[in-house]
């Protein structure tokens, strides 16, 4: 019985991690229809922005929840200025440029810091569920993800910038006609997306450790989740995460991790065949 409880926790946790690694990409993609192939590296940098200050003696939580998102957010704004802005509306070029950026970041980080795995131990210890030990950090990840998702929703739904951004997302020409500075909106949104990616990487760092190459494991899944999610930034990402997280984790429990991974991919393939615009694309226009 308590094993069942543990399974449920692990499934929810898997869903949370998927949503966490995807949300930043989702906002950028949903906003400007741009696939940021350096997304994985944003997470990776977020991880380092947590581990390095912590090694330097700064409080883990402060590095994780403040330093990482801020630095990566600013970095995102710079990237938007230097690269993405020059390529608006050119999806393919943006993909190539951001792929180049991802290689560049991997190269630089490994050159400066080295390819070593920065080992870390999740804080908060563990709790007993029946006869099972479960890392308390698992619950923290679930909680943090829920807060982030809700927070993003509130931001776009109720804050002035959020509303403008949402309008721009749905119809940038109209927004421009109404005197919205589309470029500024894009810059801020890209920065926000980057910040969230950094935060995600930071939160996951104690679980997965950090290394220059870790981005690859993130980007593939995030890409699949975001696109499968369809036109709704938050609704889509959330629903896709729930679907894939549940499937892969349950299969993993029932069989092996590799079958779980394959199950996720197969699910994505079948889903997009049945709903060619992604989960939410069929029923909604672009939005949250």
């Amino acid at each position, binding site marked *: 019985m308590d094993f069942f409880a543990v399974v449920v926790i692990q499934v929810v946790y898997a869903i949370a991690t998927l949503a966490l690694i995807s949300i930043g990409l989702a906002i950028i993609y949903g906003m400007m229809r741009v696939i940021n192939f350096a997304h994985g590296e944003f997470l990776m940098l977020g991880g380092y922005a947590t581990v390095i200050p912590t090694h330097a003696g700064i409080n883990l939580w402060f590095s994780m929840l403040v330093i990482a998102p801020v630095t990566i957010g600013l970095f995102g704004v710079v990237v938007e200025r230097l690269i993405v802005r020059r390529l608006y509306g050119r999806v393919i070029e943006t993909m190539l440029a951001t792929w180049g950026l991802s290689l560049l970041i991997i*190269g630089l980080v490994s050159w400066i810091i*080295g390819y*070593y*795995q920065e*080992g870390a131990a999740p804080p908060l210890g563990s709790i007993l569920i029946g006869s099972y030990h479960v890392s*308390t950090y698992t619950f923290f990840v679930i909680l943090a993800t829920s807060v982030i998702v809700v927070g993003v929703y509130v931001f776009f739904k109720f804050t002035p910038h959020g509303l403008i951004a949402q309008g721009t997302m749905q119809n940038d020409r109209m927004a421009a006609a109404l005197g919205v500075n589309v470029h500024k909106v894009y810059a801020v949104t890209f920065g926000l997306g980057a910040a969230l990616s950094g935060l995600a990487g930071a939160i996951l760092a104690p679980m*997965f450790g950090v290394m220059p190459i870790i981005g690859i494991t993130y980007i593939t899944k995030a890409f699949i989740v975001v696109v499968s999610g369809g036109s709704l930034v938050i609704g889509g990402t959330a629903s896709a995460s729930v679907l894939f997280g549940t499937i892969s984790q349950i299969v993993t429990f029932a069989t092996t991790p*590799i079958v779980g*991974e394959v199950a996720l991919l197969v699910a994505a393939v079948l889903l997009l065949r049945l709903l060619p615009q992604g989960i939410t694309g069929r029923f909604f226009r672009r939005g949250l």
Partner: protein
Amino acid sequence: MSLDVTRRSVLRIGTGAIAAVASLGPRLGLAESGDKIRIGTIQDLSSFLQPFGTQKKRCLDLAVDEINASGGLLGRQVELITYDSQSNDQLYAQFATQLALRDKVAVVHGGLQSSAREVIRPIFHRTNTLFFYNTPYEGGVCDRNCFCTGTTPGQLLENLLPYMIKKYGKTIYVLAADYNFGQLSEKWTRKIASENGAKVVASEFFPLDVAQFGPTISKIQAAKPAFIINTFVGPAHASFYGQWSAAGMKNEIPIASQTFGEGGEILRMPPEVAEGITVCYNYLDEIDTASNKVFLQRMRTKFGSDFGYIGDLGVNEYQGLLLWAEAVKKAGTLDREAVIKALESGISIVGPSGDVSLDPVTHHCIFNMYLAVAGKDRKFIIQEKFEKVRPTNPNGVCDLIKRPETNVQFQPEAL
């Protein structure tokens, strides 16, 4: 289309030029090398296998320095030609051909992943270029042109498992990388376990990019084994240890590992995570012998005090190169046949790990194995030393003296 001709030729010239440049680089190095003995290596010096490649390259450089400092080989200096495979098998193939056909090196030491080894081994076999593979691997390679100086699962597990079984109990949970090394090690584990009256209660295999171990940790708790033995490979898997200790399991079920430490984890992982993990290697930086002290001193003088953890990945390169040098001295020539004969004469050296000698029959190494446990202070504490551990060779499938023409990698069913 009217521009095709020009365009094509332009592009052709472009490509040609680059190819020429590509070939130029080491050329320059060659020109002033005069009558030096050229030996080659291909290492993963960039991309995701870099940490291993870097350490291996350092050890080779050190060995070359020592040989040259002591007057070189056959009175000639030795020059090491290095290529960076960028952790990419296709480049392994390209550089292997270059080493064999252009640089015409006397021997090649290198390669990390088994896939890379299996890409270049045939090339060196075909081009009669002597090849040393100085890395712990899944075992079974039987090729007269190839010498494997790393540990094989049998050598390792036949010492590690009995210790664990005696100390902790007879039920084993196996966690392994989902590829050849892991799968073969798992088979060895089952075999050796049964020989020691223990049994494997469950085995799980993980793709190299899996970093999520929640379900596994729960499954292990459900199975309640006496201990865990893992064959994790690569950084993603390393996150298991953190998640394991975070789940508060560290003091519940002990872990033995076939790979922990080879990526320098012992220095990077928080001690509260690493402490207590049991390993068994041919070499550990902590070995307290004169020869090792000298070795470490030389590393420090060459690379500064923060050269990281060496481990047997690096030292195997060092020992492999010394073995070859010894054979060349004995043969008195660089001629491949003569050197192979010398190598098959039961040649041996004293390396950082102690006595290392080549087994003529399998072209693998007979050396010491050290059993150690990760301590509190980012160091291994050596528990036992097993001397002259022979390479396992089930039912003598591989006999390069009787059957020199053999050129295969024997697969698990041979077990």
